[in-house]
């Protein structure tokens, strides 16, 4: 029971720690960097492991973070060469590093607990058993301490450099002209992402790191248009995904990390469809409403055109709208309903007649075009 609580606590801390720098990755359109870094660090971990022969050495974290930053540097060099676009450059370096890491593990570390499955998905269920002991005193799981420290680091950095990060993300040229070096900020942010990925890697694996860094910020981006709220909302969505994913995994006895990543995806899908501001459904409804109201105005103009003429009886009818305007019957019904609701028209049988308000609306529509 207490171990399960630890698993939840670790997952929540990881979720917040990943979401915060993730917001800036998404806004800078380098979300894929999280993927690159979280995979490339494997090489650093393996190499340092061969040197120190201890899976719990803190040097593993240092080595991994350095490989993460090396990935960023090499990617930037490829981009600056001007020969490849950003996305290709990002996708180029990390599979190379990752594969070397995998080959080294399978060739030389067969007997150690360092296998490629654990690398991808981690094993958060075991994280609580890896304790932090000082002189025999049990201080809880190491992962919680490591990720807690990473979280504090991330929150501190983003709070201190909020203004600078915002400016260099929005307008790097102005930032540079003011003396806030976008290059320095970029590398600082990428170092933060590396450290976060390394810390989270052991507990949750690289796929969940990527899911938690990109998906909650991307979801929050669809829900708010304010940077501070986007940060808070990302953290909140991350926590919710971690908690719900955990119980989902327990219920169906599945991989915890896999379930958490799935839930982040579900949240994104929901926001994508139903966001009040930018959701697909809202956009569809708005577009449809616009079409109906525009068509209703067309209808008023048509009625005004033929009002009082000899052909009024044939022209200004519901059935003529279907023939004349090329609208489908259900659409004509919608348009007429809109007009009736506006109190711009009156319907008598098949015939349609303008009210005073309708005439006025039709005239003003004509003069405005």
């Amino acid at each position, binding site marked *: 029971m207490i171990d399960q609580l630890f698993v939840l606590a670790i997952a929540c801390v990881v979720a917040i720690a990943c979401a915060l720098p993730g917001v800036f990755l998404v806004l800078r359109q380098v979300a894929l960097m999280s993927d690159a870094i979280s995979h490339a660090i494997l090489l650093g971990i393996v190499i340092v492991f061969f040197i120190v022969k201890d899976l719990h050495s803190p040097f593993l974290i240092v080595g991994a973070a350095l490989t993460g930053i090396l990935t960023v540097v090499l990617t930037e060099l490829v981009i600056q060469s001007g020969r490849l676009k950003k996305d290709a450059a990002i996708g180029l370096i990390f599979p190379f590093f990752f594969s070397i890491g995998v080959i080294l593990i399978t060739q030389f570390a067969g007997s150690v607990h360092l296998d490629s499955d654990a690398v991808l998905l981690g094993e958060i269920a075991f994280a609580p058993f890896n304790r932090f002991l000082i002189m025999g005193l049990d201080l809880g799981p190491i992962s919680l301490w490591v990720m807690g420290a990473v979280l504090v680091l991330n929150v501190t950095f983003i709070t201190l*450099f909020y203004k600078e990060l915002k400016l260099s993300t929005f*307008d790097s040229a102005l930032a540079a002209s003011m003396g806030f070096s976008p290059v320095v900020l970029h590398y600082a942010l990428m170092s933060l992402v590396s450290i976060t990925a390394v810390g989270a890697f052991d507990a949750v694996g690289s796929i969940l790191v990527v899911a938690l860094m990109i998906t909650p910020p991307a979801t929050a981006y669809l829900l*708010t*248009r304010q940077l501070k709220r986007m940060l808070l909302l990302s953290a909140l969505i991350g926590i919710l995904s971690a908690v719900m994913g955990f119980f989902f995994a327990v219920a169906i006895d599945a991989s915890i990390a896999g379930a958490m990543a799935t839930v982040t995806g579900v949240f994104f899908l929901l926001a994508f469809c139903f966001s009040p501001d930018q959701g697909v459904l809202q956009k569809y409804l708005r577009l449809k409403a616009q079409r109906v109201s525009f068509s209703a105005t067309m209808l008023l103009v048509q009625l005004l055109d033929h009002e009082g003429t000899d052909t009024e009886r044939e022209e200004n009818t519901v059935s003529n709208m279907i023939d004349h305007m090329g609208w489908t019957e259900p659409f004509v019904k919608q348009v007429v309903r809109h007009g009736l609701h506006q109190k711009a028209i009156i319907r008598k049988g098949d015939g349609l007649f303008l009210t005073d308000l309708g005439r006025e609306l039709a005239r003003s529509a004509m003069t405005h075009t």
Partner: protein
Amino acid sequence: MTPIESDSQDIAVSVKDLTMAYREKPVLWDIDMEVPRGVLMAIVGPNGAGKTTLIKAILGLLKPAAGKVEIFGKPFESQRYYVGYVPQCGSVDWDFPTNALDVVTMGRYGHLGWFKRPSKMDRDLALDALDRVGMADFADRQISQLSGGQQQRVFLARALVQDAMIYFMDEPFVGVDAVTEKTIVGILKTLRDQGKTVIVVHHDLQTLSEYFDWAFLMNVRQIALGPVSEVITQENLKAAYGGRSAIF
């Protein structure tokens, strides 16, 4: 705010032997330019002439292959607080989650320096600037919902709160409506009348003499610098545009 010793006061921007290349191709070739203080100057030339590159090189955003840039007689790095910059409107992501007031407040960041947060005073300055460009009612508006002209006004307001001595603006009239264009020109002239130096990358030769006092005509190399009437001669335009200049 008096940045400088008196003898270098008169030259706001000085560029010497500036050369830049992209791979092997020269983009700027041996540019020498001295812009006196208090002029409203256009940088004109055909597409690909290196106008934006020149501004970016002056602001230290691009590293030149050779040459020297001075602002009031000193290197740009020590003078950046006296310089305001309006990049091309299209160079930023207008879907960024923020509002107009916040973008204008960013103009204060240079004065604040690292760590320090904008205060109420900075926000008030930003509101004033929005008012000056006729955007007071749009302070809370999401920037994604602004029209091209409104975006440009927000950028101009942001430059105003930079409270600079020299302004560099990259194509502030692109994608704006006629009313906005008049507003911007009015503000540029006010800045000039206050003794500030304004340097604008400009496209439209038709409006040149109406909007600007000075012009720098270039096409990779410099062609002419001086009062608009002296710069815009048939010979100079031919040198810059080849046979492509339509207005004379």
